[in-house]
């Protein structure tokens, strides 16, 4: 089992398997028994070649897809045992997602995108709007509140996505190639932002990335090959010259 340090374990994965097209001729065994522990406040990177199962692992943690075997415990709750509705509510309250393609609703403005998770939690729309505005201002998006995603640059869109992921104050933030669609300057800005939030809020980050430079900004790096964890590199990593 790969684990980081001795503080409180927030995410614990045991023997996780995922098979696509199970039982069919084109079955793909994407995850082949993953065991992993992540402590609260960790910032972890997952690296590996394309098709090794990184995104699949992230989707399993976020319960965006069903696993084929194994257990996932988040904040000591066996999330596999939750009903679909409970999983959705759990995801809404405890997990924030940041995607490579931002996945913002194109038909909502920046502030509307950010406030949506709060509305789902039942917040009054006025309060939700105020909180979303505050957060966007904190992230330097104060002058772009009512722009639609199409009117924003990639970096700006990702800031909105980050704000949407953070607004419910989730315990874990999952990032699937969050800088994959950004230039290097913007990528640096975004990863710096992640690190700042991680330090300030003690929120756990699990980031899938191809970019070694990004990965090295994290506390440790988990390497995956063919649906399995091959090794783990612990930080801190030396600063780039």
């Amino acid at each position, binding site marked *: 089992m790969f684990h980081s340090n001795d503080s409180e374990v927030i995410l614990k994965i045991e023997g996780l398997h995922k098979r696509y097209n199970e039982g069919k001729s084109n079955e793909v065994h994407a995850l082949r028994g993953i065991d992993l522990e992540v402590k609260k406040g960790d910032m972890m990177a997952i690296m590996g070649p394309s098709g090794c199962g990184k995104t*699949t692992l992230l*989707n399993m943690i*976020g319960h*965006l*897809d*069903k696993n084929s075997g194994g257990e996932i415990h988040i904040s000591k709750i066996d999330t596999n045992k939750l009903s*679909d*509705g409970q999983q*959705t*509510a759990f*995801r*809404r*309250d405890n997990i924030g*997602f940041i*995607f490579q*393609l931002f*996945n*913002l*609703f*194109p*038909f*909502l403005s920046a502030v*509307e995108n950010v*406030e*949506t*998770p709060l*509305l*789902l*939690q*039942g*917040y009054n*729309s006025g309060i939700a709007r105020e909180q979303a505005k505050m957060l966007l201002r904190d992230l330097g998006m104060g002058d772009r509140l009512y722009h639609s995603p*199409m009117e924003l640059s990639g970096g700006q869109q990702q800031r909105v996505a980050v704000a*949407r992921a953070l607004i*419910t104050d989730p315990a874990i933030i999952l990032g699937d190639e969050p800088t994959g669609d950004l230039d290097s300057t913007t990528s640096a800005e975004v990863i710096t932002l992640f690190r700042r939030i991680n330090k300030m809020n003690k929120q756990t980050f699990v980031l899938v990335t191809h970019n070694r430079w990004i990965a090295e900004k994290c506390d440790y790096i988990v390497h995956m090959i063919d649906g399995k964890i091959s090794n783990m590199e612990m930080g801190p990593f030396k600063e780039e010259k």
Partner: protein
Amino acid sequence: MGLISSIKIAKRALTRRKTKNFSAILAIALGVTLMVGIQITTDTLENAFLTSLLIREGEVDIRFSNGTGGFLSAADESNISALVPDALAIMSELQSSGPAMIGSQFEPSVSMAGIPLDYNEAFGNFYDWDTGEVMDISTYLADNSSVLLSSSLAEDMDINKSTELPINLTTEFTSITIVPKLNESTGFPILNETTGFPILELQITEERVILSITEIFDSRRPGIGASYRGVLFSLDAYQDWMSLQDPLRNKDIIGAYLITYQTDHFSTPIDETVLQEKFDALEERLPVKMVNDQEVNVYAIDSSRLLYIGLIDLIFGLMSSFLNVLGLLIIITGILLITNVQLMSVEDREFQTGVLRAVGEKRGGIFRSMLFETLFQGIFGGIFGLVGGLIFGQLVALYLVSLFGSGSASVQPLVKESVVIFSVIVGVILGMLTGLLPALRASRVNIVEALRGIKITFEEKSSRNLAFIGVLLSFLGIFFFLNNGIINRNLQYIWLTSGWDNISEWENILLGAGFLFTGLGIVLSRYISRTKAFNLTSIVLWGTPVFMFVVAMGSGWITDMSGSSLNILIIAIIEIVIGSVMLVGMNLPYIMRFLRSTLIKIPGVKGVAQVAPALISSHKTRSTLTFAIFAVVLTLNVTVASLVATNIDSTVGQSEEDSRGIDLYVQLSDPEYNLANTSYTTELYRIDSAITDVIGMKTFKPGSTDYTRYVATKNPFSPDFNPQSNLLPLGFGELRSDQILGDAQNATDDEDWRFDFYMYNLPDGVRPTSIDLGASDEVLLDQSKRAWDKFFDPEYRMTAYNITLDLENFDISNFGGFTASTLEEVDPILDINGSEVQYPIVFTDSFLLPLGMPIWIPFNTSQFGFPVYQPFTIGGSFDSDRAGGWPLSRSMQTEGFSSGSFSGTLGTVYFPERFSSYTDFFGMADELSPDKREPDQFDTYLIKTTYPFDSPAIEDVAQSIEDFTNTKDSGYRKLIGDEFMVATATSLYSKLEASLEMMEQMTNFLQIYVNFGLIIGAVGMAVISVRNVAERKREIGMMRAIGFPRYQVMTAALLELMVLGFIGLIIGVVNGLFVNVGFSNMLDVPVVIPWGTIGAYLSFITFIGLLAGAIPGWVASRIPAAEALRYVG
């Protein structure tokens, strides 16, 4: 990449995107279904009418009769055969009519005919009603008392297939014998003083005969049997009976020779034009003889086939133009649906288009591959649509059968090849055309933006080219405005009050405002935001017709309704629909913002409130097209529903007031007897003390072959008179001043008028210069009374106007005599001296006879004589909604077309008493005519009672009258010593109920017709819903990822559809009601809102929305979020 690669790409797109292609194909299929279905319905209906009439004609193409009246003889056969060498067969026939009694059932006038037993087989067969087998009539018609009965008459006489034959039928024949004149006191013959021989005189008696019905033939099956709807004799037998009318007992009498040019007309209809040519040519070469130094034709020819076809074309022309307008609007919904789905295709595929462009595909290639795709979709959609349309058409035809019955107007689905081919081709072309815009858009995508997933948005400002089109449209609008007064001098300038007071001016106002403001909107959108610019356009488009319906018609601005009321209705409905859809579409974001702010307060749907309204307003075009489908269809549905509710309600509510005291009317099968000490009227007063007034009238309807008593619509002595199109089988009525005025002297003597008989169109000298639709009942009654003064004034003559009615060129848009007319733009007819031609007037309830038209009524006619035509001017028409016109002219609604009573259907011409003596059906013009009458021999009676209009006691009075008249050996029959007399007493209330039932049938049909669109809209909604969900997989993934529970994902999909459905419903209801307000204002009846029907539509939309949205929504909510997020279209 070339053509092949475009096809390959299209093929791949078709096979990979199965659901989406299926929905596009389905949309096209639905559109084609609609077109094919509507066409089949219209054709089927037309065919049903035509068939019912053509069956009756059997195989007869042309009929020869005696050119100077009277009979033909056996010797004429060879002459006639020589005139028609190309005829397939010729057959003699002797036809007349008489009363018939079977058991206790009595029919006052039954058609009777004799035909040769060895008639040519080209005329078809008789079929046994019971077994359906071909009958050899000679085995059943062995002697002159054996007859065959038609199945139609059998049904009327309560005979069924299991009735044991033979049964007796009693009838009467007129017998005329020459007898010596007897001295009344001595009883001996009176001798001629000069010659010493007895003086002879004619003795006319009715000989009662008992005949034996030996078999019943099927008269509804195509064949010769269908031509004979009554009693059939052998020719010899009928000649025996008919010769009784001849004192010399000459039996060599033939009524007509029937000619056929082909056999099996039913399955192989004869070419109408060819027949007309043959007829015209034959008319040219008819032999002539000299009578009183005048050349007259030896033979008269006619072709009821040609006449009926003309009539059917005319009547159905009216109906089909209305159906076509509805059909056209419904088809628009199909077009909206196809465009919508095609538009989705492009938006959905911008990413792939970007990839194709990035790997080197040219714009032309993209364009071609999309066109190929839509071509495939069009072809498949066309084929499926054809199948759907055929099924739809069959179902509607079945419904029509249940509606109109399978009687003489039986309904068989008719599928014309040309219609099918046309509809499918149109469907395919439509599929491609609607794919053209999306294909163009696809070929022009910005590669980088498409690959980045940035959706294309339209330019906010219009291009220069578009602005130019706007300028052109504005000029077109100005042209229409200028048409009023400047281009068309008959109309008034728009800046004058009088320029807003008639329908034709409003037609230009509507078109002018529509085009001008559409153009202005386009031009302005180059300088200001599109929303603002087109809001202006849509408000004017919607507001102008609404203003016309509500204000201009409501407060009586429009005083002249003559003109193309159908045109204005079409234009107004189109503008209202476009304007309202555009207005709502343009302001959709505001409406959605309001919806969001309302929903977001409700716990549990806050996420839905955030997403669904935003989704709707983000796809403005698509959302607009979706609700437009319902807006168009529901506008029509609500229009039809509320129109009917308004009509029915106003009919019931107004009836008591409008009947003006008349509670029931009685019709005798024959004119009453001329009794010495009493009359039928006197007897009626004795039946029930509640009867306070009995108004006796004379009416007459010519028989179906009695052409000498048909009204001529053109001078019969003019060279261009054509009996085929200028003779109408109208009924006649006599109206006396005492029946209407009672003791009153004239219009000013208000108190003593006996019967308030309202008129619609009025004669010269009474007619106001403009028609005031808001005129009060008092004003209308005063005008009507003055019209009656003219009618009864022997000195009064009215100018004949230059209006001709040919069945070939009947003015459908003006509905003939239905429209109120001022005759302002019609020229009077001038004689050779330049003076206006004036004739006495007649009144009518026939829609075929417009005010001011000259007609020629045959006077002094008998079965044996040639008519003398007297010209009249149509001086007015009855107000069919009010007293007088109402009880008398209801035949159309209650009998309809299926009864086959054409003269009843086409209406009646009424003339004053002073002309009665010139006819032998109201007077004694020809003593020999069996129809001759004494002055008080009435047949129709309008009766007033002390009971309220809808009192059941009136039914009891009606029953007492029937009992008094129809009971064997007692009451009236005993008084007259004749069992051959039957009275039909009908309370106006029951007649009203019957007409409401007929109206309801017609309404049901119209409802079914417009419901075509509703069904298509519903299926379209499902298609759009499936497409929406398929296309928004990625958004659904996002929703699930950030914590939307499944039910909210489903609710969001549902809400989108429901909201669009409801917007369509609201637009439809509002528009439909405004159109209806217009109708009500036109007809001056109160508006009735059909809340029940609107509730039904609301339930329907809710149900469809739930069904169409829930299933795809549920499927969507089950898709794992990770899979949905991977979706790239």
